[in-house]
């Protein structure tokens, strides 16, 4: 690939000069479709974005007690989240320092030790290598103290959300989160003085499309009624008042983070009753809403409890705080294939009736068996197929509401443009640096 050192114009790994058109004077905003199809760009994303950003790794409630651990995959890497013997939360790459085998092969459990079964190397749950069989026959220079389990370059916890970064250059988590921090708090504050927890049962599904399509879709308020008409028909048939519509704003939260912030017809277990709910659920929700005013103050309680929020934390975490409360993490697998891992978040010790309501609110819309999410899969998978004509039909439009002077309503696209600008900045700056040694 040729590198043009005479201008600042980015040259992407694909050799294209332009992947984004962004002109506020005309309201032109377009994304070149090769960003969804080009394997070279996908590889570059893994290095330039995912290896350099904070990534959600799990929730503190998943390892509440000393010795608890869960294992999962982060950008292809097997990792362990563990509560070590000192009570500290630890994240390790799940690989033996000796020859690589997984040191923990269970999805979750409780143990003081991780033992590689290949040659029986044994690690404490705080990471130290305790011993190796046949130690006397290793060279004198081999010090077990140097071969503990390895952790990601950075691990930080914000309001019980655990993030890791594979790069030591990533800014501190709070700086990185920018305006998204307050929105994460508006979710975390739903504990009303208690704690939040991940609900048992993970929904691990997939879409045959590029991960960025899932990002767009998760914060896209424009598609709601055309794609999900059958969902709204169903809740309407149950007696939910649909006259409210989706009323709110789309926000650019800085650093690529974004959200929809709105009032909606569906019920919320923190604030909003609907006609089909049981009397007991209605009583509990009303009491909870009053408690929110007391604990948070009226203004904050409105933001936390009444308003629904689709929060995108760049690059791959979504917190959907709507008819339920979902943590959705995107794991890019190929340029045209994405794993989606989804959990429910809830106040610990929640009344069973509210928990039932919360789970039903999720199941009616969200997840791989809902009345709505599978239709999103269909939309995105057909977009991916459409991109096969990228040579002839090159550009996606993301220009709704751009430069029109109108409000940033939820069905406009300022939030999606925020994502693309950050993506573009990271790919541009880093690509120039990696190709030509030019940094900005």
């Amino acid at each position, binding site marked *: 690939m040729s590198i043009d050192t005479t201008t600042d114009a980015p040259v992407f790994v694909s050799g294209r000069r332009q992947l984004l058109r962004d002109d506020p004077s005309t309201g032109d905003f377009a994304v070149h479709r090769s960003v969804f199809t080009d394997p070279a760009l996908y590889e570059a994303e893994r290095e330039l974005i995912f290896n350099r950003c904070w990534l959600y790794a799990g929730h503190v409630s998943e390892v509440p007690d000393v010795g608890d651990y869960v294992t999962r995959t982060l950008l292809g890497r097997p990792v362990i989240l563990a509560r070590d013997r000192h009570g500290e939360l630890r994240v390790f790459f799940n690989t033996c320092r000796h020859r690589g085998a997984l040191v923990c092969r269970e*999805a979750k459990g409780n143990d003081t030790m991780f033992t590689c079964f290949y040659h029986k190397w044994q690690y404490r749950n705080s990471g130290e290598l305790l011993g190796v069989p046949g130690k006397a026959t290793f060279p004198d220079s081999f010090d077990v103290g140097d071969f503990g389990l390895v952790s990601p370059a950075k691990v930080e916890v914000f309001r019980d959300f655990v993030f890791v970064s594979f790069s030591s250059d990533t800014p501190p988590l709070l700086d990185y989160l920018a305006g998204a921090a307050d929105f994460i708090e508006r979710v975390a504050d739903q504990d009303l003085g208690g704690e939040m927890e991940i*609900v*048992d*049962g*993970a*929904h*691990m*599904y*997939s*879409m*045959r499309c590029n991960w960025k399509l899932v990002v767009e879709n998760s914060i896209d308020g424009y598609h709601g009624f055309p*794609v999900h*008409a*059958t*969902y709204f*028909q*169903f809740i309407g*048939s*149950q007696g939910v008042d649909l006259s409210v519509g989706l009323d709110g704003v789309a926000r650019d939260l800085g650093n690529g983070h974004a959200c929809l912030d709105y009032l909606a017809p569906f019920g919320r277990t923190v604030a909003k009753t609907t006609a089909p709910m049981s009397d007991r659920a209605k009583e509990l929700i009303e009491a909870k809403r009053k408690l929110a005013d007391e604990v948070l103050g009226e203004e904050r309680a409105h933001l936390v409890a009444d308003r629904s929020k689709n929060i995108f934390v760049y690059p791959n975490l979504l917190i959907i705080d709507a008819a339920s409360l979902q943590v959705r993490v995107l794991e890019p697998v190929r340029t045209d*294939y994405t*794993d989606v891992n989804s*959990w*429910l978040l809830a106040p610990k010790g929640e009344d*069973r009736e509210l*928990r*039932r309501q919360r*789970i*039903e609110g*999720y*199941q*009616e819309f969200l*997840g*791989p*068996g809902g*009345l709505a*999410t*599978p*239709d999103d*899969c*269909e*939309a995105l*998978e057909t977009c991916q197929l459409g991109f096969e004509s990228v040579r002839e039909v090159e550009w996606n439009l993301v220009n709704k509401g751009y430069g029109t002077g109108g409000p940033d309503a939820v069905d406009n696209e300022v939030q999606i443009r925020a994502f693309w600008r950050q993506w573009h900045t990271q790919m541009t700056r880093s690509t120039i640096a990696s190709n030509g040694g030019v940094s900005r």
Partner: protein
Amino acid sequence: MSALDTSVTTDRLLLRLRVEEFLYEEAALLDAWRLQDWLELVDEGARYYVPPTDRPDARDSVETAFIISDRYELLVGRVNRLETDAAWVERPRSRTHRMISNVRIAGVEPQIVARSNFIVHRVRRGVTDCFTGTYEHHLRPEGDSFRITERWAILQAEALQPLGKIGFIL
């Protein structure tokens, strides 16, 4: 060795055969997308469960977030939705092909509980997915057939990857 009580054995086998026939008919209706006819087999108040793939043993759909734990109203809503033109994920519809085997009667009181193994091949837009698992049907005798009071489709997949999603009635 005591003599085999043939009457008990025969009753048990006949019950299993009747249940098998019911399961095969149910599978044929679902494969044919005759969903309203399928709904005729389902008792009002029945529940339809798909536990999450990491907790195939889960039984309490409030303690654990199931992928699906439809109360009857939601199940009817699911069927009605699938019959509209706007259930995009199933337009065009998946072609499904169900194989049911290893049918066992796990209980007869207060209701008949039948467990069976399933393989559902789903073909759509160039991709063949294979859903494997165990059905558990709770059946109430009605006339010379049964009505479903509870229906479990317990996936034995480790994840819905690469199956994607469950757009049809599993």
